[in-house]
């Protein structure tokens, strides 16, 4: 089988659900990249500025909403009313598996953020927050973005392999 035939077979095997999840995953990865890139390229003054941080979070929120709306409009345009179809039992189970991973990552992220805040508030040890202001908030945003990405990857992986009983 040639490479183009393999690609054609792969494209034909992709379900509408997988396409939706892939677009959500791409949007989440782009937003994560934008957030991390903004933090890396920010000056020390910007990192310490509440207004700059508020602007960044507002941008992230705006991008999330706009990209999600655009992707759903695109999907609604190319789909044959498939967006309205409810998930079947297997897809609901896969959805729950994705949410399980998401919940674990969010819990860990919030625990780390609380711990980090306690370190900052009590001045324990040579804490990293002296270099990165508002670190607990960045940890929470990071955990949220990682949780979203993991959720979509887990759903795509479980949907493709079918091993949902592990």
């Amino acid at each position: 089988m040639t490479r183009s035939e393999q690609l054609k077979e792969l494209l034909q095997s992709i379900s509408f659900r997988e396409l939706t999840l892939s677009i959500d995953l791409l949007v989440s990865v782009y937003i994560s990249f934008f957030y991390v890139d903004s933090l890396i390229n920010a000056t020390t003054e910007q990192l310490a500025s509440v207004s700059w941080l508020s602007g960044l979070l507002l941008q992230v929120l705006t991008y999330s909403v706009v990209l999600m709306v655009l992707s759903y409009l695109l999907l609604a345009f190319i789909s044959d009313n498939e967006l309205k179809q409810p998930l079947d039992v297997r897809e609901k189970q896969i959805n729950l598996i994705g949410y399980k991973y998401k919940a674990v990552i969010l819990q860990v992220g919030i625990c780390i953020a609380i711990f980090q805040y306690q370190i900052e508030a009590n001045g324990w040890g040579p804490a990293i927050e002296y270099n990165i202001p508002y670190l607990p908030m960045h940890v929470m945003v990071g955990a949220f973005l990682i949780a979203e990405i993991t959720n979509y990857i887990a759903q795509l992986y479980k949907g493709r392999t079918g091993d949902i009983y592990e």
Partner: protein
Amino acid sequence: MISMSEYAISNSIRTLRFLYNEMTQKQLADAIGVTRQTVMAIEANKYSPSLEVAFKIAAVFKLPLEEVFQYRATNT
């Protein structure tokens, strides 16, 4: 030598589809209200369908449930 038996669900859907006017996975999926990926997973024994979906599949082929799905011991 001790032989350990485990039970697993298997099915004859692929054969039945072929015998039933070479029905496609998509046609079967539409008939029972699931996605084609779910039919693929059921056929490959990677997913055990709900009782309702199992009965719907049997109804499509106009067969009793036990002729479509089997619960057999597999020697390991």
